[in-house]
């Protein structure tokens, strides 16, 4: 084996320049040429890319766990109620009316003449089946914890349903608008896509794509406006943005805020930023040392550079958080609570008072909790300035929730937008909650929570939730640096899109409202 190549400097230089040139090619913006809508299309056939798909993809609303599932399920199925875009209050959907005297027993009257995609009429039997199955462990419903409140679900004639709860809950109509409570056909243990939704299922390949076509007999006249929607997932964010810019897809979900300038510069696409109550939080367990020390918790809350997190991670699209889970866009947000700000002197003072100086503590983060890896880096940097040494431990996304989340003194959690304050408080902050993330116990908080849940008077409810926010802000071992806004990208020819704080893609229901205009 001989190699007698002589390499001249000029050639080497040439190769280097060629490499840089190739890179510079990427530097050019996309040209403003336009591509037709989907290759398969007539007018109004669009392709939509969400962020995650896997063999876990399901047609069963109860099992829906990701944005892709929610979008798919809202296209195929309808709920008893839905949430008003502006007021975020519940309004009738498949149920034409609902009422309750004591907020324990609720009566729903079903809309008549609604048909499933296979022609069968919607009756109380379908609703009873859909709601009851959440309490069957074999169904593995994602909201079994909420459905546990159903003491009884029974048919009340062909078009009436009565739900009796274990305790008063004024929020039931809001809860029933959740994607998991969408109505499936009676008798289907494994729902197959036959619903009463705006689109019919044409093709479903888990992890690859979902193809739906317009349901011409949709129970809301005049909707939907699109002929066909193909839902795919492009997990890689850069690829997703490129697919939108190159015209291969017409709407994308979950854009990294750093990609927004590219989309805005394109001329053919636009970004929609939806403020939401999504947050990634730092959990300081109250049953571990030293995180249970109030001084430790206060020190950490005062060394969070929230504006930096907002700027560096989210390009100022987020809203500053105040270590309590009710976002400014949600009902009952407490405006009187003073905002915690970066105060390293105060943090140092707490560190000294708690005798925590020089402490070394592992901090677990994972791509599973959006932004937590970068937040951990930021915390580590400031920690070194106040005498706390955080050893960042980044672990893979898989296995994170089952083996790390809440199981070490300091981990990160990630909470999707919840429709009600009650839900987020009872899932993550109630003393006996399964996912009481920080292991926080506060009797007064628990009492207020139960009282607020059954309270009919809105003003009184607001006061109760306001005080609960103050309690969490002052005492709980949870730090919420920012509320993350959801960024979606759309082809400009797609009209009728607006932000709805319940989630990206107009609360996952954009397909019902979107129009295509060339």
């Amino acid at each position, binding site marked *: *084996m*001989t*190699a*007698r*190549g*002589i*390499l*001249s400097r000029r050639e*080497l230089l040439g190769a*280097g320049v060629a*490499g*840089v040139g190739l*890179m*510079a090619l*990427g*530097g050019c*913006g996309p040209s403003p040429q336009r591509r037709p809508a989907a290759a398969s299309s007539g007018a109004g056939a669009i392709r939509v890319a969400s962020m995650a798909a896997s063999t876990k993809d399901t047609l069963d609303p109860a099992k829906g766990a990701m944005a892709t599932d929610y979008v798919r399920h809202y296209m195929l199925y309808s709920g008893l109620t839905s949430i008003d875009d502006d007021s975020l209050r519940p309004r009738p959907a498949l149920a034409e009316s609902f009422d309750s005297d004591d907020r324990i027993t609720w009566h729903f009257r079903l809309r008549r003449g609604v048909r499933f995609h296979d022609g069968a009429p919607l009756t109380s039997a379908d609703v009873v089946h859909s709601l009851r199955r959440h309490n069957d462990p074999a169904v593995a419903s994602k909201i079994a914890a909420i459905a546990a409140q159903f003491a009884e679900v029974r048919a009340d004639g062909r078009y009436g349903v009565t739900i009796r709860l274990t305790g008063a809950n004024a929020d039931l109509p809001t809860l029933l608008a959740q994607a998991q409570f969408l109505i499936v056909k009676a008798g289907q243990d494994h729902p197959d896509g036959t619903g009463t939704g705006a689109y019919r299922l044409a093709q479903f390949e888990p992890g690859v794509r979902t193809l739906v076509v317009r349901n011409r007999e949709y129970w809301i006249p005049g909707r939907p406006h699109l002929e066909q929607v193909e839902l795919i997932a492009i997990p890689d*964010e*850069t690829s997703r943005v490129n697919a939108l810019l190159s015209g291969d897809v017409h709407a994308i979900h979950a854009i*990294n805020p*750093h*990609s927004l300038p*590219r989309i805005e510069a394109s001329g053919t696409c636009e970004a929609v930023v939806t403020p939401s109550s999504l947050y990634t939080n730092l959990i300081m367990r109250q049953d571990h040392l030293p995180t249970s020390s109030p001084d430790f918790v206060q020190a950490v809350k005062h060394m969070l*550079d929230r504006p*930096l997190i907002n*700027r*560096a*991670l989210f*390009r100022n699209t987020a809203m500053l958080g105040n270590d309590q889970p009710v976002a400014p866009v949600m009902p009952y947000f407490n405006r009187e609570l003073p905002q915690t700000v970066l105060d390293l002197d105060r943090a140092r003072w707490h560190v000294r008072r708690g005798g925590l100086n020089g402490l070394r503590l592992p901090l677990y*983060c994972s*791509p599973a909790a959006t932004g937590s*890896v*970068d937040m*951990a*880096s*930021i915390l*580590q*940097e400031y920690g070194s300035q106040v005498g706390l040494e955080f050893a*960042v*431990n*980044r*672990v*893979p*996304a*898989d*296995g994170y929730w089952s083996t790390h989340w809440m199981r070490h003194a300091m981990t990160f959690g990630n909470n999707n937008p919840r429709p009600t304050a009650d839900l987020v408080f009872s899932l993550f902050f109630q003393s006996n909650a399964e996912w009481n993330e920080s292991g926080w116990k506060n009797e007064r908080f628990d009492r207020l929570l139960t009282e607020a849940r059954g309270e009919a008077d809105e003003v009184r409810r607001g006061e109760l939730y306001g005080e609960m926010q103050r309690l969490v802000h002052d005492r709980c071992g949870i730090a919420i640096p920012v509320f993350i806004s959801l960024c979606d990208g759309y082809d400009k020819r797609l009209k009728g899109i607006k932000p709805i704080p319940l989630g990206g893609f107009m609360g996952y229901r954009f397909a019902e409202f979107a129009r295509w205009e060339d």
Partner: protein
Amino acid sequence: MSGALAMRVRNMRLSGRIGLALVLFWLVLAVGGPALAPHPVGAFIDQEVFSGPGRTFWLGSDYLGRDVLSRVLWGSRYTVFLALGAALLAVLGGTSLALFSAIRGGWTDEILARAMDTLNSMPSKIFALVLVAAFGSSLTLLLLIAAFIYIPGNYRIARALAINLVAMDFVQVARARGEGAFHIARYEVLPNMIHPLLADTGLRFVFVVLLLSGLSFLGLGVQPPYADLGSLVRENISGLPMAAPAIIVPALAIASLTVGANLLIDALKPGGKA
């Protein structure tokens, strides 16, 4: 010894010398670079993200507004030492097993060869993903995992070389003298395969550098705030459309390091200096 080395370098063709210079450059940076870094590796110092080169930040800032130069200086340490360590370990492990296998022969050889085939047949990135998920990704573990993944490849090559050598007369003579297996391996076989093994070490080095950047694509790798060069490329990928130095500099760093290593390997091959 050093005289012979200098001789070798002088006899090397230009491309080999360029390779040597590049590799030495990165070695020096890996050792001394972090001391030269103008800013702490995790400090958030720029209000802007992906800013271009300037007076304050020579190579601009990254996607979080950190100093690219400092991060690359630290990153080169992780990449160079991880890759070098893993390559040496892989060759040490692979060659020891190969010598053992070739000298023992028979069933030992067959079983070892099958075991190595087994490991070799698994896609390296996915295998690394499983190992990192199972054991974690501290620096030591990353080193061991990368080494473990490249042992079978080295074994394959070393065994082929050793089997040829074992069949030769001088080894048979040593056997007849009653020398032990270790003696034969250490003094008869190994010295005669050292050149191709050196070249293979270089190749493994390049492979580990690329494996590390592949792992960074899966979100695995060195723990923050530090990052190896591959992770730097990956975490700044959104700067590519604007040709930010934050992505181009680490990419060029990987390229020059691996190209340099390859050129050096070519020059080290027997006959390469002709």
